């Protein structure tokens, strides 16, 4: 997970998807991911339909496909893992192109790749069309405890500050000729981490005092009106609704594909 955390997450826009209240989008994406995970891996047609549905949302939100593809880099460690499964997996073996691959391993790799990719793309669309602050307020409306939401807000707000602090420490280390090559260099990195903790914690204390002096009593006022109309819920529900329809339809009529 070391990679891919530096990209711009939110793309401002004024499309139908951008305008939906955040809680609707969050619930829709979570329900969609649930439907995807519950789909048996043999139903190729269902996965194809899910992908088409997501592509439709990407088009509707006017997110450039390149943006989605670049952010999908986050998935790479698990792609590597999934590609390794057929080689180390057990069971019946097939040998296309002279490679000895495990058949259940291939199924498992496909299962993880398909479901993880759909989940990642859905999350990327969600993050790209929802302002971070609003996303957390939406989560609060979905009954995530307010304290957790507040912590997450502070984290998001000060993340760049802390990351910059860390970057400056790295620049300072490297400008003195330091590169971490083996285990003996761990103490140097760890001392930076210790200094970073003290700076973060002291900043937290200053932030808290500054907030107290501005009348903070333990909860943040919500000034946005985040109520969602039934129409908006219905609109957001089309994505998981369609996915669920595909899932149920395939389950009832068995038109899924190979092994269904």
């Amino acid at each position, binding site marked *: 997970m070391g990679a891919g955390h530096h990209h711009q997450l939110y793309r401002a826009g004024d499309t139908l998807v951008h305008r939906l209240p955040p809680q609707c989008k969050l619930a829709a994406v979570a329900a969609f*991911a649930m439907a995807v995970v519950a789909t048996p891996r043999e139903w190729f047609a269902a996965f194809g339909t899910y992908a088409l549905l997501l592509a439709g949302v990407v088009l509707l939100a006017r997110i450039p496909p390149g943006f989605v593809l670049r952010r999908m880099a986050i998935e790479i460690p698990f792609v590597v893992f999934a590609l390794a499964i057929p080689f180390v997996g057990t069971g019946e073996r097939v040998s296309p192109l002279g490679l000895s691959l495990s058949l259940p391993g291939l199924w498992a790799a496909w299962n993880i790749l*398909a479901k*993880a990719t759909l989940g*990642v793309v859905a999350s990327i669309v969600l993050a790209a069309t929802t302002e971070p602050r609003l996303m957390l307020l939406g989560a609060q409306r979905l009954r*995530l405890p307010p304290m*957790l939401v507040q912590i997450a807000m502070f984290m998001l707000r000060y993340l760049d500050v802390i990351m910059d602090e860390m970057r400056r420490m790295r620049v300072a280390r490297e400008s003195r000729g330091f590169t971490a090559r083996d285990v003996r260099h761990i103490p140097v990195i760890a001392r930076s981490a210790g200094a970073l903790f003290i700076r973060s914690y002291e900043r937290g204390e200053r932030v808290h005092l500054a907030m107290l002096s501005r009348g903070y009593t333990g909860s943040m006022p919500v000034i946005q009106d985040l109520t969602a109309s039934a129409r908006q819920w219905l609109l957001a529900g089309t994505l998981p609704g369609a996915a669920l329809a595909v899932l149920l339809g395939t389950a009832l009529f068995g038109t899924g594909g190979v092994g269904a």
Partner: protein
Amino acid sequence: MHVPDGFFNVAVSVSAGAVAAAGTAVCLRGARRELDDRTAPMAGLVAAFIFAVQMLNFPVAAGTSGHLLGGALAAILVGPYTAVLCMAVVLLVQGFFFADGGLTALGVNITLMGIVTVLTGWGVFRLITQSAHGRAAVTAASFAAALVSVPASALVFTLLFWVGGTAPIEIGTVAAAMGGVHVLIGIGEGLITAVTVATVLAARPDLVYGARGLAAPLVLRGADGDVTVTPDTVERVPAPAGKARPFLLAGVGLTLVLAGVVSFFASGDPDGLERVAEDEGFLAQATGHAFGSWSLADYGDVGGIPVGVAGVVGVGITLVAGGAVAYGARRRDREGA
């Protein structure tokens, strides 16, 4: 490495979600006692610190590098309750905004990387610091705590994988591979954690939660020679009751509904491991795992109990187990207060 969607089946994802929700709810109350109204800004900044420090890659052996999990470090620096909250928020933000870790796997990720690492790390740390005192002991305990927490998390991952993984790899192989690699990573994590804690101890010893007992009491010497020793006054704010209850109940309800309804749609085909077993021909001679004769084994394939009911019962058992642990933890905490 964050677990993505589709890695575990629905039953495991949902059960782990219930465990994560219950654990977070307990920690929300506990963190109030550790930090009172400073909870939000302090935990927020510490979460940002954990997020940043997770990106510090450290060299493990020639050519490979690992990155910090940070659970044990957070537990020692800010206390176990706040640490779980910070880890949960870090994973939440990574899942929501960075698409790192699937939304349906959020429960699994919080359980593995938040709750398990913090609990084992803090447990080992307390065990050592209770028998030995002093800064050196704190540093050594930090090393051991972080070292144990990483393979512990990996082993719980293996356990979950055994229960509901979707890949047909022999469980022994997984355990060996995960264990081996993570002991190595654990040594790195232990070194970093120990030196980090030692650094903070040297500069601001009052910030290390795990070393609170080390501070000498304040001694006042008057001009006339009389000495007053002020005892430690640790203020404890009683946790507000009932705040987390609606969330908890909603979580339990949703879990039961999902386990009952969704598991109907789970594949009726044998899962990977069973398939392997059939292929290898050892299913017939296998005596099953310890609960093989129970009606619940294989989620209702055995005793004629419908799949959905088995799912609900399974979630119930998980919840009772999680609840018992949480209740025990609270009892101990009260006695210690």
